[in-house]
């Protein structure tokens, strides 16, 4: 939709999976923030998020936004990466019917979408099942 600067700006933290950890109470924020909503501290340290986690919930998208129509059906879920910290991403490389809550996944870097207008390809993380 013609929005360019946003994605350029968000890339580095997406690539490096960099989050902010509150120096006072330890709560983790991704993307980083200026103030902790738990303890109101404004001091953070940069941490790298772990590359593995578990599925808290998920769904299979069968009616997709314009930029994702070619991918249908695809699974997407909320992945808990740290105790009390979760974020959203696609779950790839598996039969959507086999995904379950509590399943272990690891993060990989993949193409996420291509911008319809500009044709820019955007990259980010996806979750893939850990073979047990």
């Amino acid at each position, binding site marked *: *939709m013609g929005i360019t600067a*946003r994605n350029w700006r*968000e890339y580095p933290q997406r690539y490096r999976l960099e989050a902010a950890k509150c120096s006072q109470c330890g709560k983790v924020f*991704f*993307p980083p923030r200026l103030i902790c909503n738990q303890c109101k501290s404004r001091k953070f340290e940069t941490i790298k998020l772990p590359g593995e986690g578990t599925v*808290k*919930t*998920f*769904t*299979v*998208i*069968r*009616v*997709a*936004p*314009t*930029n*994702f129509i070619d*991918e249908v059906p*695809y699974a*997407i*879920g*909320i992945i808990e990466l740290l105790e*009390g910290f*979760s*974020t*959203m*991403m*696609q779950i790839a490389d598996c039969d*959507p019917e086999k995904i379950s*809550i509590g399943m272990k996944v690891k993060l990989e870097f993949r193409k*996420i*979408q291509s911008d319809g207008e500009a044709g820019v390809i*955007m990259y*980010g993380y996806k979750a893939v099942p850990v073979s047990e």
Partner: protein
Amino acid sequence: MRDVAIIGIGMNEKWGELWDKSIRTIFTEAALNAMDDCNVDHIDSMYIGCMSGGLFVGQEHLGSMLADNLGADFIPATRVESACASGGLAFRQAFMDVASGMSEIVLAGGVEKMLDVDGGAATYALSTAADQEYECFHGVTFPGLYAMIANAHMAKYGTTRKQLAHVSVKNHMNGSKNHRAQFPFKTTLEEVVNSVMVADPLTIMDCSPVTDGAAAVILCPLDLAKKKFANKPIIKVIGSGHATDSIALHDRKDLTWLSAVELSGKRALKMAGKKIADINVCEVHDCFTIAEICVTEALGIFEPGMGGPSVESGITNIGGKIPVNTSGGLKSKGHPVGATGIAQIIEITEQLRGISGDRQVNGAKVGMTQNMGGSGGSSVCHILEVN
């Protein structure tokens, strides 16, 4: 703060695909109907709930355009936005305007023209209620977000696919008696479960539709209502509550719990001096079937996890102990996002006036509305009582 009353209500004759009418026309229709309902020929100020004039019709600055088209020259007119809770929030600001003593006769309206753009553009516009960079970037849709809530709720509480379907069946049954509804047909559990899958486990019959529509109500001080507008039952606004939560679903500790709904409800009840058990009829935000289940739990109507079994039991039917979404809800009546919160106020006002016909809840004296933004990032509740 002054006591405030609702004296006029109005909607379009029918919601749905209003191809031949522009946003300015559908809003003006609803606003004139509300003014006619109470026979006022002017308003002092106006609030308009609209989620995205920019993305749906390429038109912001709706306060100016819509006051102009209503012939309400030079009045203060304010557009208010909180995604799908924009209408409820416009009502709240109008309430404050009257309660503060700033204005006497105030119109609270809502409008959304969603069908001027194609489906892809509409999906994009709606997605701007979620976190663009950390939710939508990954390809999630609104049905997808609520589907994730549904799966979490099913895993935690054993809520069933059939219980979700009961919400749709009940709301279509109610909507079949509402001539303004976009989809006034009845449906069955089988039809809901076997419809086209949108985002597992939600089918198209778990989802509210895309709709063109507008709604408006007129507020004034209670004293003025008693003096000049007593030819109809006077409906008092006794509670207003508004709360926000994280915009991203994944930032919430319990994915099945809507804290903004809980808090907006508690705040409204506290102002009203009521308990949830005092509510006789309720309009809540059933943008998806799972939403109605979660909302009835967050408001405290049912215990956590009991939303599903409760709708299954029929307790939320018209004639049940606590009827929910007698209008047909967003599911059957339609969901023009900015207008929905105002239409909820209209349904409760009609119930408390006792003019709901086949949908009437007998003896309804106190009613509640709950209007949600996004996946629960905001919520607005109001409590109305017949004088």
